[in-house]
């Protein structure tokens, strides 16, 4: 179940003791994953996998190099140190190389659960079995994946910095499919503590959507009022964060450059709608995350407050260049919600579409942060404040900037999985106007 703190200290010190370079950082990750996968209502591939990774970077002045190995014997470690030191000596000087961080204080991690770590393959199978049996009873095919991870992550450096964090988590999602009528439904959950894991309601939601989405009809594409369930919201919101770098803006190659006049700063401006509030907090009990990013401490950080951009991510070198504090990339994202149920959001819509989740999101145009992707596994018409019949899926082309500008109302936050990335996110369903449904997809 991962290296203990003293084992990590001992191993990281063993590595650092071998290093003769001016500076060194060593990161050790050690994990044991239980992977249970099924399809057509039977277990398919599965596994119990343990692994360790030692990532060492060394520097001579502004020359540096890094190496990764996954064996801890003395011979491998010595060879790795010798190799990486030789590479660093040969590397040209990097004017932007930053020295190792000084030891510092970090928030207390909240990411570990003994119960999750103790989950056995037998117990995992026993939890999945009733969900599969429910699918069989309902006459649908289900495919799903449960992954339990337990891990430790250590960072130590030649200046005496040492930080150790253990984490656990269970990710579970399933897709239920009705052969007749081509219905498809999906649901998911993501927890840190096993006590919060309840698979059967998740399975029931997917089955219900599969049955309800049979015989979907085509609805005309176009800019549409939509209710986005949390899985769709998390994908769209997370895309915004890939564009929130201070350096890209300063260099003129960010979507933010198109939103402000030349010479104007984006921070402090109301770039989004008033209902958009986004922050990160490593200790949030709903979505705890890593307390540092490459050694930079993470703290509670406001990114967007009632539509106003509050902060940008800043790397260490760029912070030094600009005379400001660095700000690490967040480890979680929390979006404030208004606490409404999805039904209450739907009740506000005269004519629109309910979207369960999105798929294959890809950047189309970085200048406007335009992304494309598709709806999937449960897309329904909304008519006169109620869920109507199933409609065929859509391709969308839109920017998270537009979505955060067009929020009409929001619901109660949930922690679910998305299609892109597994960062813990706690987001509400959103009622959004003018979502650009670009074309119809025959996928079901």
């Amino acid at each position, binding site marked *: 179940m991962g290296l203990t703190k003293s084992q990590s200290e001992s191993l990281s010190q063993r590595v650092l003791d071998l290093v003769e370079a001016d500076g060194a950082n060593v990161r050790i990750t050690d994990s044991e994953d239980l*992977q249970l996968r099924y399809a*057509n209502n039977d277990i398919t591939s599965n596994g119990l996998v343990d692994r360790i990774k030692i990532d060492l970077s060394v520097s001579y002045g502004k020359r540096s190099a890094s190496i990764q190995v996954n064996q801890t014997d003395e011979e*491998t470690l010595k060879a790795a140190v010798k190799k990486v030191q030789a590479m660093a000596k040969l590397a040209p000087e990097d004017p932007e190389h930053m020295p190792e961080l000084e030891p510092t204080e970090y928030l207390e991690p909240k990411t570990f659960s003994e119960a999750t770590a103790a989950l056995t393959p037998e117990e995992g199978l026993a939890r999945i079995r009733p969900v599969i049996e429910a699918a069989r009873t309902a006459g649908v095919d289900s495919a799903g994946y449960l992954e339990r991870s337990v891990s430790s992550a250590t960072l130590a450096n030649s200046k005496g910095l040492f930080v150790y964090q253990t984490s656990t988590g269970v990710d579970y999602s399933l*897709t239920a499919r009705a052969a007749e009528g081509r219905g498809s439904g*999906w649901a998911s959950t993501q927890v840190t503590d096993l006590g919060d894991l309840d698979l059967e309601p998740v399975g029931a939601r997917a089955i219900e959507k599969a049955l309800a989405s049979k015989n979907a009809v085509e609805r005309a594409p176009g800019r549409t009022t939509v209710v986005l369930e949390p899985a769709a919201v998390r994908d769209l919101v997370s895309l915004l964060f890939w564009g929130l770098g201070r350096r890209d803006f300063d260099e003129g190659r960010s979507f933010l450059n198109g939103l402000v006049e030349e010479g104007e700063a984006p921070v402090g401006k109301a770039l989004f709608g008033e209902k958009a509030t986004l922050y990160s907090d490593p200790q949030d009990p709903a979505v705890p995350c890593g307390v540092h990013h490459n050694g930079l401490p993470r703290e509670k950080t406001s990114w967007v407050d009632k539509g106003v951009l509050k902060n940008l991510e800043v790397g260490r070198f760029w912070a030094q260049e600009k005379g400001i504090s660095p700000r690490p990339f967040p480890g979680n994202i929390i979006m404030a919600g208004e606490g409404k149920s999805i039904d209450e959001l739907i009740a506000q819509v005269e004519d629109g579409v309910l979207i369960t989740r999105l798929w294959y999101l890809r950047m189309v145009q970085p200048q406007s942060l335009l992304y494309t992707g598709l709806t999937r596994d449960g897309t329904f018409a909304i008519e006169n404040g109620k869920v109507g019949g199933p409609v065929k899926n859509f391709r969308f082309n839109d920017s998270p900037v537009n979505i955060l500008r067009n929020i009409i109302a929001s619901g109660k936050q949930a922690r679910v999985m998305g299609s892109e990335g597994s960062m813990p996110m706690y987001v509400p369903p959103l009622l959004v106007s003018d979502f650009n449904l670009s074309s119809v997809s025959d996928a079901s």
Partner: protein
Amino acid sequence: MHRRDWIKGTSAAGLALITNRWSATAAEAAGLSDRFAGLAEMALNKAQSLGASFADFHLMQTDKESLFVREEMVQGVNAGSSLGCSVRVLVNGAWGFAASEEISEAKITSLVEAAVATAKGQAGWRSQPIEIEKLPANVGKWELPIEVDPFTVSLEEKVERLLGINRSALGAGANYCYSHVSMVRERKWLANTFGSRTEQSRVRIHPGFSITVVDQKKGEFASRASMLPPRGAGYEHLRDWDAVAEAALAVEQAREKMAAPSVKPGKMDLVIAPSNLWLTVHETVGHPTELDRSLGYEANYAGTSFCTPDKLDTLRYGSEIVNIFADRTADNGLATIGWDDDGVATAGKEFPIIKDGIFSNFQMAIGQAELIGREGGSNGCSYADSFDSFPIQRMPNISLQPGKDDAVTTQDLIAGVEDGIYVDGNGSWSIDQQRYNFQFTGQVFHRIKNGKLDGMYRDVAYQGNSVDFWNACDGLGGRDTYELGGAFNCGKGQPGQVAPVSHGAVPGRFRQINILNTAEESGKKVASLDPVQSPSTCDCSGGGKTSWA
């Protein structure tokens, strides 16, 4: 295109490269070759004694090296190696799998026990037992032929080559430039209860760059990425690339793109270069014809497919000139290998996916062919991306074959278009979970007017339905226009696995394809203008590989 120069059974040649490797893991790997037989016997005997009807034992070592240069600063010098083993068992019709980086008799015993326990944990509630075909016992060694082992080339040489790219781009006026190269060596040992004992080694390399030009006053920027694909090749792939010339051309093209008029959306004829079309082949033909997807095994992640078994030999997937072929034996192919990760020999297993426009076969791993009543068993498409990954069905090299007339050039295809676009380089890509609706961009969009290139467009994406698209193909380049594209990072499976795969293609002409204006899609009001006539910055002369001279 399909030279089969295996080095099977020649152990000295098979291990020749090892002598130049860098770390103690080299010694470890060499030692593993000696230890492998004993460990495998122990693992397989243990599995059978615990009730396994089939078992296999895998060892895998992956070595990587990557360099990254930003402008004239070398910011990434990285090496890495991972090593580990796995055991897969079939017990009472259920799979079990376990893996570890620790390679010891005690650990392997515990892996076998864990794998068997997981398989037995499914007893009593499986609806269908997993059944696999009997495979021949394959014994031997195989190595991908390369000219220069990239792991033996000096760091200085590699760094200087990347710096040369960036200097060229900056000298031509780029505001920013990244260049990079990634190199991978995979070594695999496989033993199974059918009697197979194989040892394989292959190398791949991916060099590239991206340049950006910025207009601070307008708040605009444009980028252009390199078009050299990754290959199953040695350092010669980077060495022989005229990247300095392409970097300078890329800057010129990015500037032209930034100043170009925005495209008017609607139906247009397209000529698509192999540098773009390989990815369209991948997404609209490669993934839909994976049998595991079609049968629902990927339903919760990658999706299913419009290509269902009932459409075999009947679906008109493309026009009559469209032939798409699959193999794991092509020269320099990223999916090329001697035996797949189920132990199936790949030579002789090549197959057409689309023959004269008709859907002809699926990609299959072990245990799948019988599910659709197909004779001949697996066609060698199993792959595990790491020592700790369960082998699943992955893509072979899948390639669009040249048209019947070898004399047809890219210019000939362009000459047949009155008003259209010549698309070069791959950009953004997205497709639905059953592979109907796709949308792609590119790097450069040359306007075609009256059969000739005439300036550029910006803000272009093409969107359509896979089967409609291939049926709209009415022209293909000849043999001399064939190029091998590909990617290191095709994703599939839960947990996610990435596979390297190549796709050969010739340029193709497609009639009346839906063009989107991406600026309009983002909500901007755009005035579409005719392009200013300018000398073309395109060299679409075709040839065996992209040439930007």
